[in-house]
């Protein structure tokens, strides 16, 4: 029996997924095969696994639970500066960890703004350190991402459906049942899985905000196995465990069928008629102000501490900035080359393997990927010479799950809507891609590319393992400056990094929405 005809061959997608899997599992295998001794997992390692699971689950739950009302408010309000706010809300996600920690502490720390305000009333300073601190920090990092993913779900409900709902006089409950709940059922599991996977491989944030060795995560245990014990076998074992946990979480979250979606619309201007009463308006205002303050205040702290240093940055910072822009550009291209075929294959067939392949990239320990690549590259080429390309590749793989979350639902809708028409017109392969997929997915591709560029710009990634003194990306340079007591220059460089990341994100994200209603 002939297979169901599809406008695009899924082969490229399966190829890309295989490549990603090979990179992650191949590097893991390379590390495992280099292991000499190994003492297996200790009780402390299992404690790390337990803590990692708890903090990642809580972080995912809180991030997504808060993201739903914030996204809902942003979806039904139009106000001046809304798109700037949405762009800015993405900033915490792309900050280098060390900068974000200092920004968070400037607001929530013992000597932070909140504690100072409390002191005015004679109250004790805030204690941020502990499990709640870890969750707070992870919500700070991931609330923007979860909000964007869920907001996108709202934006994918065609204007016609809102018109219909308005016509039916649907109140809040009916809106919820008719449109919002089914959309959330589609979007929320994926958002949970992504945030969970991100938090699973957290290390410095969890340790610092967790207040001590109680907050040891698997990634820290991997780090310890590597550089403290030089026990590659244990490092590989822990990294494998991390991958299995992610795959399990992804299977749990994503195995539920995604439902029918909302069908097609005619690209009409989106107008909303619901939520016009005072209560709904104040509720939305509350959530927008809450998210704005929570996310932007630490950012403001980063900007304020960076301003004095930004005008007198050393030349190496500028060359590092140039390297970062290069890496980010390459990384974005690689990401799109991997993510688009994978998303299209997922949209035309079984999505789960693609989603899992994508999430593995996120859960894989950068340390293990980096070391594995080092072991693989070392016999044939100088790892130093390949520092930037390898960083671009690894950063692209890390951004893959986000890109898939963004692209797969939209690809599914495009294929469902236009498959038959395209097939009767013999639009297959490139013409379908160019004339249908790319124009229909402009907004999603722009968003994914912007996210990838910004992430790659801000991520330390594997470059620390490979870089020689002449080659540094901006995040690495920030660390190097701090390590040399150059705190002011480091703060200035961090501000530059923030501006570059946000700029890259804004350009690509706006580019995708050109001529389209945001």
């Amino acid at each position, binding site marked *: 029996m002939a297979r169901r005809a599809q406008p695009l061959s899924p082969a490229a997608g399966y190829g890309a997924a295989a490549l990603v899997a090979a990179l992650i599992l191949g590097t893991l295998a390379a590390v495992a095969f*280099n292991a000499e001794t190994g003492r297996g997992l200790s009780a*402390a390692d299992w*404690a790390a696994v337990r803590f990692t699971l708890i903090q990642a689950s809580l972080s995912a739950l809180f991030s997504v639970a808060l993201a739903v009302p914030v996204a809902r408010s942003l979806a039904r309000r139009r106000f001046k500066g809304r798109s700037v706010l949405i762009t800015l809300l993405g900033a915490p996600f792309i900050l280098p960890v*060390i900068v974000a*920690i*200092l920004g968070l*502490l*400037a607001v929530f*720390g*013992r*000597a932070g703004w909140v504690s100072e305000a409390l002191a005015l009333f004679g109250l004790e300073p805030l204690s941020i*350190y502990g499990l709640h601190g870890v969750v707070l920090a992870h919500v700070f990092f991931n609330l923007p991402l979860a909000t964007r993913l869920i907001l996108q779900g709202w934006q994918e409900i065609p204007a016609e459906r809102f018109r219909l709902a308005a016509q039916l006089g649907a109140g809040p409950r009916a809106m919820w049942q008719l449109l919002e709940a089914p959309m959330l059922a589609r979007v929320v599991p994926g958002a949970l899985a992504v945030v969970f996977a991100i938090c699973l491989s957290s*290390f*410095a944030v969890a*340790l*610092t*905000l*967790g*207040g*001590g*060795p*109680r907050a*040891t995560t698997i990634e*820290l245990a991997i*780090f*310890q196995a*590597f*550089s*403290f014990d*030089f026990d590659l076998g244990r490092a590989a074992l822990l990294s494998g465990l991390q991958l299995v946990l992610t795959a399990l979480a992804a299977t749990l979250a994503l195995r539920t069928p995604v439902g029918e979606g909302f069908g097609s619309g005619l690209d009409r201007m989106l107008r909303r008629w619901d939520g016009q009463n005072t209560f709904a308006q104040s509720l939305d205002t509350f959530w927008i102000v809450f998210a704005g303050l929570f996310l932007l205040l630490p950012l403001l702290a980063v900007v304020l501490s960076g301003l004095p240093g930004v005008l007198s940055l*050393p030349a*190496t910072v500028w060359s590092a900035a140039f390297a970062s822009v290069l890496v980010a550009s390459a990384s974005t291209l690689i990401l799109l080359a991997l993510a688009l075929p994978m998303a299209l294959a997922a949209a035309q067939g079984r999505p789960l393997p693609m989603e899992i392949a994508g999430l593995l990239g996120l859960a894989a320990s950068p340390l293990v990927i980096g*070391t594995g690549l*080092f*072991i693989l590259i*070392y*016999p044939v080429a*100088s790892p*130093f010479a390949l520092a930037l390309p390898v960083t671009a590749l690894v950063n692209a793989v890390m951004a893959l799950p986000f890109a898939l979350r963004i692209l797969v639902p939209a690809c599914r809708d495009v294929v469902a809507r236009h498959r038959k028409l395209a097939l009767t017109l013999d639009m297959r392969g490139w013409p379908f891609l160019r004339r249908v997929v790319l124009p229909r997915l402009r907004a999603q591709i722009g968003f994914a590319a912007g996210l990838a560029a910004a992430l790659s710009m801000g991520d330390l990634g594997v470059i*620390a*393992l490979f*870089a*020689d*003194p002449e080659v540094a990306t901006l995040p690495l340079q920030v*660390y*190097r*400056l*701090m*390590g*040399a*007591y*150059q*705190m002011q220059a480091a703060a200035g460089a961090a501000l530059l990094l923030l501006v570059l990341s946000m700029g890259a994100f804004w350009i690509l994200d706006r580019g995708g929405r050109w001529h389209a209603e945001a």
Partner: protein
Amino acid sequence: MKYSVFAAGLLGASAALAETPELTVYTYDSFVSDWGPGPAVEAAFEEVCGCDLKLVGAGDGAALLARIKLEGDRSDADVVLGLDTNLTAAARDSGLFAPHSVTADYDLPIAWGDDTFVPYDWGYFAFVHNADAAVPGDFKALAASDTKIVIQDPRSSTPGLGLLMWVKAAYGDEAPAIWDGLSDNIVTVTKGWSEAYGMFLEGEADMVLSYTTSPAYHLIAEEDASKSAASFAEGHYMQVEVAGKLAASDQPELADQFLQFMVSDAFQSIIPTTNWMYPAVTPAGGLPKGFETLITPEKSLLLPADEAAAVRDAALDEWRGALSR
């Protein structure tokens, strides 16, 4: 005819280029940074060696050793610079290092007799605080006070490991009780020195684990006398940073020459104001102005390399146990 002369010239030139020997030294990142000793060391050594000195940064000290172990016999490195006494036992056990032939009159607070590793600088771990703050004089007083400190994780940071050894060397079997007492003073534990020091400068804690020489940086580079190091009655644990020659080096003579250069004035005079540590051999010109203001511990603590390696895992378990409660 002309062509062959030209060709010969070209060949000669490239041969001459190839004859310039290259010495590859792996070190930690901050050594090679613009503010570290790297640039000055490279210029000074290349002046005397007729060679090309290539300094390669590879993370921190622990990552450096991991890197060398991964590369094994095939490594391009001729010399590894930047291990400390917590790592030398493991480094020696790898069998990748060769004995050195360096002789020097070290100005270390302890006797140095290692035949494989050559020390190039040293320092004391200490808690750094704002000069105007009242601070405790030993660990027990610290534990009894409500002074807040930020420390680094021994699993991911050199000072963190140094503190672990400090408490162990000073208190032995009593160490768990000390950690127990300190647990409510510790604001948090960070991955590396930079996070902790940054947090301290932001006012997040009263003291941060660093070096006795840290105030010298603020004083000399920033003309800021507001930072001091607290002197602890138990004595202070030392960090001695060393370099070693790899057995598989294809430039063994040059490597020896570098190690000998390392303990000479030319190298040693660079160290204090770039690496912010004490030089292993005090240069003829003495220490830079400002170093005389630093505290000098009455007692220097340092576990011998083998002992340090032997007690490390147990000390880590004690630390984790006390701070996880």
